[in-house]
């Protein structure tokens, strides 16, 4: 069981690294915002898995907050790009 959790965490770390490279390279504002969105989603899943590793029920609330509030920044940036803010 522990090996599976380690494999999952390392795969997620590689996903975060690749999308961060896209954030640095991306030629456009929309590309960087997509990278931020992907990083937020992977971070939410990582928070839930780390909460399972620590065996504390209260730790899952942080992932809940990220799932509820993480997309507001992306929507505000999109409205700014559209010129409608």
């Amino acid at each position, binding site marked *: 069981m522990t090996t599976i959790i*380690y494999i999952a*965490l*390392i795969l997620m*770390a590689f996903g*975060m*690294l690749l999308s*961060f490279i896209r*954030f*640095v390279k991306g030629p456009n*504002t929309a590309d*960087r*915002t997509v990278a*931020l969105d992907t*990083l*937020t989603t992977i*971070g939410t899943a*990582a*928070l839930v898995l*780390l909460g399972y590793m620590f065996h*504390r029920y*209260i*730790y899952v*609330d*942080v992932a809940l*907050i*990220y799932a509820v*509030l*993480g997309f*507001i*920044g992306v929507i*505000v*940036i999109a409205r*700014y790009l559209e010129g409608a*803010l």
Partner: protein
Amino acid sequence: MIYFILILFLMILMIAAAIYSVYQKDLMYATIGTGIVSLALSILFYLLQAPDVALTEAAIGAALTTIIFVIAIRNTIRYEGDD
């Protein structure tokens, strides 16, 4: 061992995003960079056994800071200007 790798990875991510957001000329990209700094900082608080601080950092860093910076950029100019 896995804690060591994770914390090292998150610290490198945080330093890289901070350097990027300070050196970038386009202020919109710098704002997105502060969002990534806030995400890495929140997971680091989580690994340092402070979930309440991580919750506050998530709520404020992910949503509110981005919103007020975007509103400020919309009311002023977007580029830093090298003249």
